[in-house]
């Protein structure tokens, strides 16, 4: 995975900035320029929206067989988090033992190192989650 195509999304990834459709009030993350519900009616009405970072575990797994850039972290917890705003994000859960995780558990986002580019050693940052 080379970095430049990930850098473009960094403002969103660092600050949890998505979009809110002014037509149906739906919140989306990552940002998209067209609301899938309102389509044409949403053009020009998708406004920047910062998520609070609070949410609940919707599902989770413990990864034992990762992609090469993540081998040093294994085993790690991957989860899908349902944010307060209703939108779901995929991310790791940290600062928590695997046995303690359950569906419905309260979590909040935290800014962390996501991984390292294999050869170059360039570090990628973004959101992970931790228990509240």
């Amino acid at each position: 995975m080379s970095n430049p195509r990930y850098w473009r999304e960094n403002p969103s990834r660092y600050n949890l900035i998505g979009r809110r459709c002014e037509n149906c009030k739906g919140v989306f993350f990552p940002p998209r320029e067209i609301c899938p519900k309102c389509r044409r009616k949403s053009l020009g009405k998708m406004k920047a929206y910062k998520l609070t970072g609070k949410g609940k575990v919707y599902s989770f797994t413990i990864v034992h067989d990762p992609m090469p850039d993540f081998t040093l972290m294994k085993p790690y917890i991957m989860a899908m988090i349902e944010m307060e705003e209703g939108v779901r994000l995929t991310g790791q859960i940290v600062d928590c033992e695997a046995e303690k995780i359950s569906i419905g558990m309260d979590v909040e986002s935290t800014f962390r190192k996501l991984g390292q580019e294999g050869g170059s050693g360039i570090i990628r940052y973004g959101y992970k989650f931790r228990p509240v």
Partner: protein
Amino acid sequence: MRDVAIIGVGDTKFGELWEHSIRDIGMQAGLSAVSDANIAGEQIEALYIGNMAAGSLIEQEHLGALVSDYSGLSALHIPAVRIEAAGASGGMALREGYIAVASGMHDIVMVAGAEKMTDVTDEEIPTIQMAGGDQQWEGISGSTMASLFAMMARRHMHEYGTTRENIASVPVKNHKNGAMNPNAQYQKGITMDTVLKSPMVADPLGVFDCAPISDGAAAVILAPLDIAKKYSEQPIKIVASAAATDTLALQHRESLTRIDSIKVASRNAYKTAGIGPKEIDVAEVHDSYSIAEIISIEDLGFFEKGKGGPATLEGMTEINGVVSVNTSGGLKARGDPMGATGVAQAVEIARQLRGKGEKRQVNNAEYGLSLNMGGTGGTSVVHIYRRL
């Protein structure tokens, strides 16, 4: 639109085919389909190749020209194109071939699927598989394809009380079937205990819940139904071809226990075929992960939502059960050379409907269905077939 039939099928053995390149296996599958169809190579008017990742796996693109060339067709200069839709590449290639014949653009076409996965190290495979999901928003955080299906499995367990044994009964059944398929990668039965105690990949899914890394190729020859009998004693009619898409990333789906692209594609296919799920005798579905087969047999309408797990454990999807699912051994036991899989499913259904399923033959099979899926369901392709 004209009616379309399969007049010939061919495949290679699936597995780790050390001594063979993608050129060899593409050619082998193609030649055996041509010979099964009783046609001459010169009659092929166009070639559609299902392939997911030759660029990453063997640094080779342009599979259309490659397979045409190594199948001995270069002097004929026919159009040939590679179709990519992640794990659904083969099914999408079949659909493109079907459309070409149905529309009247071409009479006889070849659809082939091929993938050579064992030329890279096992460590590189999760990244290549994950390219069928959303690398930008799932992959970057450490998601693997297995982890996404594991989260679907955990949700299915949470919402419907599906048990670990329910899920494990999928690979047990598929290995039992694979043991009767001479072209399967694994031709050996396994016990429930083997699945439950296998090393974890992404909890709750272990090694035996995941389809293997495979090389292999498969091919079918299509022709208009009205001339199919000229070539084949047992042409198989394709009565419906439907495809549907959904969000690329799993996180954007309304539900993790339902795959809407399967629901939409199968609903459209049943409508075209004029039948319902109860008419299907034999089905090849996309068990890239064990939980995917459970969700698939629910969303195809074979079983109510939430009942797929218990139905499998009770043997309802075994050969000659309520509906015979993955008689070939499925992706788990037959093997999953990604772009070849969708075409291999059509090959198995055609064999079953011709009564050529040997030890794994389903009694009096009239209607067959194949479901080929890409990623976590970003694409689903459904075909329905009928014995004539």
